[in-house]
Structures are given as C-alpha cells and as structure tokens.
C-alpha cells in the first residue's frame, strides 16, 4: 500500500484569475474518497514543495451521492467526488497521480466550484412541477398503477449534478441545448396523471432552438449519469412527443 497519494489540482482563485495547477502529496488511508482527500488538504494546506497555500474550494454536501453537489473532472472524467474512491484512481500499481479539475462547461466560481444554476433555470422553462390547486387537505391523489411508478421513479432520481450536460458535445453556447436532465424531468411530469395537464406547454418549451432537436445522439449522457437515469430513452420519447405536438400545432393554426 502506498503511504501517500499524489494529486494535481487545477485551481483558479476567481473567475477572472488565470488557472494554475498545484500538486499535493496527501497521507494515504484505506477507504479514502476524493472529498476526504480534499479534507486532508484543508487540514494541512501545503503543496508538494512545502509551500503554504489555501484549502481547495469545491462544492459538497451529502457525501453519499444523492445531493448532486460535488461533480468535477476526476482524471479527466466527469464524476461525483464523494463516490470516487482513491484506490480506484491510482492505477494498477497505486502510484499514479490523480488529477482534479472543475467541470469545463460551466462558469468557474473558484477552484473546483462552478455555477450550475442554468439547470435550475431550465427546469422553470419546462414547468417541472405538478400544478396542484393548493396545499390544503384536498383528499388523495389519483390512483397510479405500479407500472407508472416504476417508470417515473428512475427519472425522479436525477440529482441535478449536470454531468450529463458536461459530457454532451451539443451542450455549449452555440446550441443553447437544455441538456438531458431537463428533458428527463419534462418526461417525468408528463407521465404524472396531474402533471400531464401542462404536457403541451412542456413540449412546446422543448421545441425549437436549444430544444430537443439539438441532441446529436452521442449517448454520452446515459453512460456518464451516476444515477443511471434512462436518459436516451427519455430523449427519444420526448423527441417523438415534441414532434407530434409541433404537427398538431401546425394544423391548429
């Protein structure tokens, strides 16, 4: 077993500052993940040359891959830092340097923290909610076959980590693509018996520039999703529904 872990971290002190790389060597303990490694650096913020530096800024919260905070590029791959175990990242001889960098498609805040609020804005555009009448006691909801629940639940497991957007070649400023997560949420609410009342509005929001047509079927999203959401299936289903809606709207003019 190695006694230390070598790690290289891409850092940037603010959005306007130049990016730099700092190297660290951190004491190894079995069972370590990337967030505990970053915690070790905070305990002793000194780089490999012995130079004092600052703790790394990164987003994290639950540390069990359910809050979606700690997405970053780990050895170049978009991953959740909490469930990235050090032992699986240092190669066969456990001596390779781990590299950490911020997600590349979102504005940098500092170091490994980026601004992913675009996803939450997109969720507003597709009205990702059930428009209930009120929060009073209005009785039970409609019955729902377990088969419907089995379709909805996996989509509802989306943790908004934005990894599907990071890995998508179409997600960039030129296309303005909303990304897979938003499309999957639109499907989730279209499947809900009460949520379906906004179905047409959601489909129209996904039509046109930046909408579902931007998808290039690279399928990176479904492979990278840490929660295994059926993203390509959702995109294909919604693509069909958006098309049908467009045809309907055309003839309804």
């Amino acid at each position, binding site marked *: 077993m190695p006694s230390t872990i070598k790690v290289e971290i891409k850092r940037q002190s603010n959005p306007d500052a130049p990016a730099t790389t700092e190297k660290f060597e951190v004491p190894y303990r079995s069972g370590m993940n990337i967030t505990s490694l970053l915690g070790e650096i905070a*305990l002793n913020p000194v780089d490999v040359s012995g130079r004092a530096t600052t703790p790394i800024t990164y987003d994290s*919260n639950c540390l069990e891959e359910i809050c979606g905070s700690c997405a970053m590029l780990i050895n170049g791959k978009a991953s959740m830092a909490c469930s990235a175990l050090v032992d699986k990242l240092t190669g066969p001889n456990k001596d390779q340097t781990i590299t950490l960098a911020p997600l590349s498609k979102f504005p940098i805040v500092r170091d490994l923290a980026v601004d992913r609020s675009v996803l939450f804005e997109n969720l507003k555009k597709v*009205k990702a*909610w059930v428009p209930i009448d009120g*929060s009073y006691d*209005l009785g039970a909801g409609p019955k729902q076959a*377990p088969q419907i*629940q089995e379709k909805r639940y996996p989509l509802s497991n989306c943790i908004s980590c934005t990894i599907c957007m990071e890995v998508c070649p179409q997600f960039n400023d030129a296309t303005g693509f909303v990304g897979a997560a938003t499309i999957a949420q639109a499907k989730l609410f279209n499947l809900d018996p009460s949520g379906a009342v906004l179905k047409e509005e959601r489909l129209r929001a996904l039509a046109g520039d930046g909408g579902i047509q931007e998808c290039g079927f690279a399928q990176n999203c479904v492979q990278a999703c840490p929660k295994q959401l059926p993203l390509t299936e959702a995109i294909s289903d919604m693509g069909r529904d958006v098309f049908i809606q467009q045809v309907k709207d055309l003839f309804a003019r």
Partner: protein
Amino acid sequence: MAATPRIIVVGGGLAGLAAVIKIAEAGGKVDLFSIVPVKRSHSVCAQGGINAAKNLKGEGDDVFKHFDDTIYGGDFLANQTPVKNMTAQGPAIIDLLDRMGVPFNRTPEGLLDFRRFGGTLYHRTAFAGATTGQQLLYALDEQVRRYEAEGKVTKYEGWEFLSAVLDTKGACRGITAMDLRTMETRTFPADAIIVCTGGNGAIFGKSTNSVVCTGSAQSALYQQGAYYANGEFIQVHPTAIPGEDKLRLMSESARGEGGRVWVPKDKNDKRAAQSIPESDRWYFLEEWYPKYGNLVPRDVATRAIFKVVYEHDMGIDGQPMVYLDVSHLSPERQHKLEGILEIYEKFVGDDPRKVPMKIFPGMHYTMGGLWVDFNQQTNIPGVYAAGEADYSIHGANRLGANSLLSCIYGGFVAGPQAMAYARSLPAQEGDGGHAAELARQKEFNNLLLNNKGTENPFKIWRELGDTMTKHATIIRYNAGLDEADAKIVELLDRYRNVNLSDKSQWANTSFAFTRQLWNMLQLGRVIVQGARLRDESRGAHYKPDFPDRNDEKFLKTTKAAFRDDAPAFEWEEVDISHIQPRPRRYDATA
C-alpha cells in the same frame, strides 16, 4: 405594518420549503436563504419513508396509535399537544405529497404502499424506494420553483445566515447573512423569520449528516438569547456504514423490509458471512426483543449493538461492526431498497444483495433544538423554527420515518403563524437594529481575517468531533462529560488564536467554516452540560450510573440560555395532557 408581510425562511430543506409554500400561498412575500441550492439540502439523505396512519393494510391503525407510538418511542419527553396535532395531520400530508407527484411505491391496485418501521407494529410508512427524503424534497422544491417563477419567492442560494437583527424591544426585524461567493455581509429586513436549518451532526465530526449540518444558525440564535432545548438528546442510528469522511446511513427500511441483524455465535468464526449457517448466527435483537425484533426503536437497537460489541466482545473479526443482512430477501423486496443497496455497493465494494453488510451505529439526528412554543415560535418574538432545528415532537428519541413528517408539519405551522404575527407587528422604530447588528458581524469577520494566530480551524474541529463522539453519544459518564466540556473550553480558547490560511474575499469556504466552528463549539457545551446535569437514562440519553428513567426529577424539558458566555440551565414541565407516562419496555412479550 405593510400590507404584504415579508418573511425570511432560513434553510431550504423540507421544513423550510413547507413554510415557504404556505406563506406564498397565503399571499406573503418570502426570501428563502440557503447555503446550498435548496435541491441539495440534507433532506435528500432521508431514505426509508414518512409515517402516517392511513391504515391501508387492514391492521386497524389510527392516528391515536401513531401519537402513542411517538410519545412512547420518545420516552415521554415530548410535549404531547404538538405531537397529537402532527400525527392527526399525517394522512392529509401524505395525500398532499401524493398530489404533488411524489413517486411513492404502489400496491397492485395503484394505492399507496406502506412498509414497517421501528417502534411500531403497524405498516405506517409510505415510501419511494429507499430515497424518500430525496423524492419529498424534490416535490416541495418543484412547488417552490413554481412560486419563484411567479415572483412570489426570492431565493438567496449560496448565502449563509449569520444572525437575527433585533430591535430595541428584542423583536426580530431581519437577518444578517453572508454571500458565500463575494463574502459580502449585509442585512435583510423581515417582519418575521423561520429558521429551518436542520441538525448539528458536524459537532460530532463524523455523522450521517451533510456538510452543512453544523447547527451554526441555531447556535447563533442561542447566543442572541433564544433558548436551546433538550440539547443532550442526540440520536445515534444503529446502522451506518463506518467511513473515512462520514458515516453513511443504512436505512431502517432495510429491517422494515425484513433485514436481520446478527453476529456469528462463535467470535472466532472465520467463515465468510454468507456461508455461516443459520444455527451458528446470533440474532441478538430478535432474541432480546421478541415482539419488535429487529424493529425496536433506534436507541434500543444502538445500545444492543454496542453491548454485543463492547460487553460481549462479539464484533465481527473483533472490530466494532455487526452484520445487517438483506441477502435472504426476495428480489422484489431488495428492489424496494435499491437506493441504499447501491450506496453500500459503491462505497464498500460488496454487493449487499449477496453478502451481509457490515454496520455500526453513528450519530444521526438532533432531537433537541431551538425551544419553540406550540406555534413554532422561539422566545425571541418574530423568530420561528421548524424541522430538525427545533426541539419539539421527538422527545428523547425519534421514531424512524417521523422526521420527514415533523419537518413538513413544523413548516406548515410556522408559515401561517409567522404570517399572522407579521400582520399584527407594529412598525419598527428607527432602523430596527440593522446597523448595529451589521457592525457586530463585520467586526467578527475582521477579527478572523486579521488574526495572527497559529491554530488550523479544521484541526480544532477534528478534536471537537473526537471528544463529542467519545463522551456524548451512546454511553455517557459524568466524568467524561466534564472532560468534554473542559476540552471545548480549551478549544474555544485556542479558537481565539486561529489562523486563516486563506484570507481572500472570494468564495472562501474555510472562512465561512471558521465562523460556523465558533457556533459549533458553543453548542457543543450545551449538549455536554445538558447531558451532565440529567442524571437519569431516557431514550437516547443513557448513563450506566443512572440506568433508570426518573420522572420525578427529570420529566422536564432542558432549556439552555447563553449567559456570561456559557450555558445556563433551567427546566420546564412537559405537557402530558393526553397520555400518562408509563414504563418503556420493548423487551416485553405481551
């Protein structure tokens, strides 16, 4: 008073979002503050489900039985009236969540399915796989997003609450908060505030809690004059995965679906767990508690595991671990636990569908919290609290799947109450205390940034966590509690010598953390001193030197006030107006 009340909600977990929904619905204006984007709040970590006596399994369950189970499970320390109200509202809250589109598991007919949980004999827990908290939080988050899109809610995500702004009469007129990117500290006006900032697991270093669960906001308010109640009651969950950076929860639903806890009968048994035959396994919970079996309340299960490991010396391979086994369950039942089984597989590497999981108790839930009246108001006028941040409902021990319910209930009470208060609030005199409070907070910031000390705040935190875990979790001795308090006093002293390695004014997370740390240390003293003074055993609070519950002396709420830089304690009678306290015996067979 302005026509439209302006309410600040601090914390965007279930309780906070529930309050926001009620206020927005009633026409109030809400500013919602959260350290993290609200969709990433700690409520997502709740796994097993939410209780409500819907009685959809033909068992004759009813809201009174839920009420009684909760009071009995909490060892009679909870005030009974709010618990009665909460359990009565349970079924309507489940219906509402269902209407919001929560993907609850269903029966073949399409009705809500219910599972069993600890401390009850009924199927009372509605669930969405094993990620119920995530699903509930998302449902409320979606409703709040809808109100946000309509302009009724303004979110301040990435802002941290620092303190309440109090006027000359001591009433709340707003808050001070810090932007965690620009590090700007400023004040925000409000007619009332609702604090829904969750538990304080970080005080114990490693816990099942999320990073933001520091108790900092509650502690800041306690230092401003709010009572902190029943601080000594900390729930240690029986089944967590020991980890490097945190203890990851293995939901009680694993046992609710039929999971069993055991150790090999022979402590030198070297066989792989799955090859040890039934006859060579010791199912100690089932043996000691034949009626409830693996579904005894958490404090009982935790002490049993602790006893097996440390008194019987029967931990697996001599380590502080026992087996939690779901490998015998049918694929259908395992499927209902998918979310948590994946967590185990990802973080440990073994497949729990085939191999028994290795678990040990871990700090999990804060039963204590800000003292509130039955309308969720603290003793500071205009400051309300709800959810894990307040002390009501759970008494000396929380029953599994009651926390999600209590969060929504608390938010649903606090929201309208804060609105009513705001409507009758007289106009503030002068600036309502804003300038003075802002100056106080900026002074603290400057002190920290210019300190020339040598102490690393993360090291102080680690030492705090170690001493709290050692002396103030499962087993408590007065000598140890005294030692812990002395240690915290030492840490507070060393804090004054803290050195921030990062003094920049942009997204400085260690600066924000160091501010929280001061509040954690202050609240740590409330916990250990409260425990020191309670010479009895009740619920999660267990002292071997005082093994029995003592109603005569201690059927009382502990209230801590911050006086002369230290906690000062008083005790308040508990509301027992509905159910007469009786001995709590889960080992009884009848």
